[in-house]
């Protein structure tokens, strides 16, 4: 008789809720008549994300002490729960952004995959050993590969899908090989066991560390592992891009933080330096490349690279303040990303073509709400006060300074200054070159239908962006409670 382990269903409940939603959506693709399919699928997926978020909140509340479960394959702690809340929120917003898209085919499958990807990420951040880590990663990655390519009508979408698939698999392959080597060096899979088993200077072990770091950096799209990001973000359907930008990065960074601090504390000198270098590279490359972009989605993609750099600074800080900073940073960052891509989607649906800076001309005056919202997101990305982006950056800098990375602070400051050019470039395009005739001419079919879901999504994003500044205190307290589970020396 096999002793089946007891499963903590409560801790798994957010994942399960989303999986259930995913399944229902999938069924709806077959069972629900085409007319109602979008409504049913979207509502179910949205409900799934919301439920998952609520459940994650409950788990957060109930998990004052961290617990490892089922041979360390799963962790129940506040770090994971908080990340799950963020991810679920991002997913729910992504559903709202998706609602208005003119998708005709595969609606049920779309929402199903979205929910599945979300479930994968939720599980991913709970991962407690190398195997669940890898499997969680592949779970959401595969769902995302499909989502990227789902607009099979569009070449760009297919190109994005294939690029993501191939480069992504390449990255996963490296991560897997690294995991294998780590396993080989220690004989253990669980993060905590790895920490206990390790000999500090084991060559296989550090090789494994290097490769896993590379694999995770790939998912977080940190330079120089970022090169897929702009292409995929640009080509993928905009709601998917929004979801990826917000959620993938959040999941990958949280797991990076957990893996590095839990499993590799003895190598911290090594990986903090490496992460710092990655951070600097991301900041430099992301910001510089973004400067040269005309396509807004592509520009935002590079901006997400630079933000990965910022958040990596928090990881490189390797202290509780850093973890707190990262977790806090993710909240406004996720909201701003989804909001910004949501606004891009609005313009895209209005014009029927890709959104470039030129095509944003006059947008701010035509659509005051979206314009003002975009303004808020851009300011938030640039780290202006009155947005959570500012507090996030501030905390990142504080964390870096506390661990002596003062030059990272300087680099971060200069990079932010650089980034202003293109963030404000968006505002410039929207407000300061009003109504070029060209942009109006290509508006497809007159005034676009009112899209309440998108407006709600953008509105919520604005609220979170600004709210996370005003209520920075309580949110930072939550982040601190989550950060406490990590074993910082």
């Amino acid at each position: 008789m096999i002793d089946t382990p007891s499963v903590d269903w409560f801790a798994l409940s957010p994942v399960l809720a989303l999986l259930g939603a995913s399944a229902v959506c999938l069924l709806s693709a077959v069972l629900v008549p085409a007319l109602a399919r979008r409504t049913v699928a979207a509502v179910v997926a949205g409900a799934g994300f919301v439920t998952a978020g609520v459940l994650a909140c409950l788990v957060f509340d109930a998990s004052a002490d961290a617990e490892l479960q089922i041979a360390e394959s799963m962790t129940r702690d506040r770090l994971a729960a908080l990340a799950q809340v963020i991810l679920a929120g991002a997913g729910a917003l992504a559903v709202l952004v998706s609602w208005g898209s003119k998708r005709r085919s595969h609606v049920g499958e779309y929402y199903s995959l979205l929910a599945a990807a979300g479930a994968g990420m939720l599980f991913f951040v709970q991962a407690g050993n190398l195997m669940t880590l890898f499997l969680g990663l592949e779970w959401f990655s595969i769902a995302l590969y499909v989502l990227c390519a789902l607009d099979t009508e569009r070449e760009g979408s297919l190109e994005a899908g294939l690029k993501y698939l191939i480069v992504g698999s390449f990255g996963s392959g490296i991560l897997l090989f690294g995991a294998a080597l780590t396993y080989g060096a220690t004989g253990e899979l669980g993060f905590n066991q790895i920490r206990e088993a390790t000999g500090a200077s084991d060559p296989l072990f550090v090789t494994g560390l290097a490769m896993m770091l590379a694999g995770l950096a790939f998912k977080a799209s940190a330079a120089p592992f970022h090169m897929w990001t702009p292409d995929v973000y640009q080509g993928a359907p905009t709601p998917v891009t929004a979801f990826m930008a917000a959620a993938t990065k959040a999941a990958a960074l949280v797991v990076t933080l957990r893996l590095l601090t839990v499993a590799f504390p003895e190598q911290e000198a090594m990986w903090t330096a490496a992460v710092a270098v990655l951070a600097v590279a991301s900041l430099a490359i992301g910001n510089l490349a973004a400067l040269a972009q005309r396509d807004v989605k592509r520009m935002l993609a590079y901006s997400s690279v630079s933000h990965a750099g910022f958040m990596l600074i928090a990881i490189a800080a390797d202290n509780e303040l850093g973890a707190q900073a990262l977790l806090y940073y993710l909240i406004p960052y996720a909201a701003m990303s989804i909001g910004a891509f949501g606004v891009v989607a609005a313009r895209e649906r209005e014009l029927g073509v890709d959104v470039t800076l030129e095509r944003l001309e006059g947008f701010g005056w035509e659509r005051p709400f979206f314009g003002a919202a975009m303004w808020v997101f851009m300011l938030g990305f640039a780290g202006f006060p009155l947005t959570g982006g500012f507090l996030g950056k501030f905390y990142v800098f504080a964390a870096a300074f506390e661990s002596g990375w003062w030059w990272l602070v300087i680099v971060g400051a200069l990079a932010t200054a650089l980034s202003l050019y293109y963030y404000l470039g968006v505002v410039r395009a929207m407000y300061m070159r009003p109504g070029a005739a060209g942009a109006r001419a290509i508006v497809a079919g007159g005034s676009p239908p009112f899209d309440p879901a998108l407006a709600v999504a953008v509105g919520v994003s604005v609220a979170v962006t600004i709210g996370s500044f005003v209520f920075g205190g309580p949110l930072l307290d939550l982040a601190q409670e989550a950060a406490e589970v990590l074993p910082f020396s």
Partner: protein
Amino acid sequence: MIAGAWLCLLAPLVGAVALTLLGTAVPRRLAAYLATLSVFVGFGGAVVSFFSMWARDPDDRSELSTAYTWLAAGDFDVGVQILVDPLSIVMMLVVSGVGGLIVAYSIGYMDGDDEERRYFAYMALFVFSMLLLVQGGNLLLLLVGWGLVGLASYLLIGFWHERPQAVAAAKKAFVMNAVGDATMALAFFVIIWQSGSLGFEESFAAADGWSTTTVNLVALGLLGGAVAKSAQLPLHTWLPDAMEGPTPVSALIHAATMVTAGVYLIVRTHPIFEAAPDVQHLAAILGAATLIVAGLVALVQTDVKRVIAYSTMSQIGYMFLAAGIGAYTFAIFHLMTHAFFKALLFMAAGIVIHQLAGEQDMRRMGGLAKRMPKTHVAFLVGTLALIGIPPLSGFWSKDPIIASALATGGGLGWALYVAALVGALLTGLYAFRAYWLVFRGEPSELVREHTGEHAHREDRVVTLGLGVPVAILTVLAAVGGLVEIPGVWDPFSVWLEVVAEPLVHPSTLQDYGTSAIAVALGTLGIYVARRTVSAGRELVPWPDAHRTLEHKFWFDELYDALFYRPAAALAVRLRTDVETPLIEGGLTEVGQTTSEAASAVARVQTGLLRTYALAIAASVVVLVVVFVAVR
């Protein structure tokens, strides 16, 4: 007494403010009367102060009255305060009295001008500022008055703002005065630094303890201000140009009052100058140099107002000479008489100019003596007083100065003495040349045109009110010097001595001897001038010398080349060589470099899948190698 002094100070201010605020709400005439009234009320206040002061014991003739704290910082504070003492009362009387006459004269002179109201507001502002200057109870307030008279001078020189020369002259006057303000301010900084106060008493008391360098610096700064304001070498070039303003302005500001402020300053701050004798002597030397240079230049000027302007410089040179050798009472005495006769000269010239429809070139005048007899008398009295012919006022005030130079003795004293005597000769030459050109000889075309069939116009001038002030000043210029007769009585000196005890006291012999020589030289000058001019010749027949004098010793050209053009060129060079390429261009360059770097980074993003994988693979290799190496 204090109330009178305050009234004297504030009445013109009220007039100025009221005129500015009321604007076109008051009729033009009323505006003129208001301004005149305000100045005469001030004069009344001054008279009241004078008599109440007269009644006091000589040792008690000084009172400081503070209204409120004007400026304060930490331990440093400066009040709005006035100092009433014999010196300031003399100045108040001269300023408000002569000022009142000139403002009254302006009623007629400016009649019909478009912007009369503005003119009178400015005039009242000027009188207020000048009174503030002389009444100010501390150095800072003195500087405030100092600056404000400069401002009023600027406003009034440029009153006819559509004339480019007037505007340029106004700017020049202001900027040169600003140089003086700046050096004075620097002197004050030193005083604050050393004594922490700008009160007269405190800073003078502190001056004794200062090092030679310090006190020299302070005195030099003050002298700079005095020189600029009084148009002495080397900051004198603005004064002739300032004649672009209306003639009463020239009479009031650039003859009677403002330009003599430098003399007042030296007398007022004499303890500092006495602590720095070298600088004080420098003042005397500058005065002597100015009186000769100005006298020489005046020999060849053709503009009647410019001749008078140079004569003003020259006369102030006497005053500086006096102040520089410590003959303070004579300096102030000459200041007062000079105010009378110089204002008179200007006003008489103004009538002539008015009569000739604005013509100021003496070569186009002549023969006015018969056609404008009253004006002629006034002008003649002024001229003789200026030359120092007894018993007119200039005689009583100028000769003691020359005698004091003699009494000073030493090489310096003799040099100054000779210079002053040469000045007396020059005065006779240029003054009588002007008189002769304007009033004697045959009437020119212009004169006939403007006075021939309208011979009654002088009467009209009189009816306009120009005559009364001129008449009063004529009397004053004639008898104003009798308040001090060497060897007979000296109430004026006694009155002032409590403020500034003179350093030299010429003997009666020196006085009378000098007077004889000076009068002889003056008469010689008159004679030569008459001979030469009536023969139609120039006083300076040598072409090179004549040209040098015409160009006023090339001071303007020199300053233009030394200061203005380098400054303007520097400003332009800074813009073209620093601001545009470096400061602004630097930003552009940073921007360009960044955008080049940006496109370079973007080019790496080829869109080729395999390069992405290669980047990943290469980075992994680097990571692994480094990790294994440093583990």
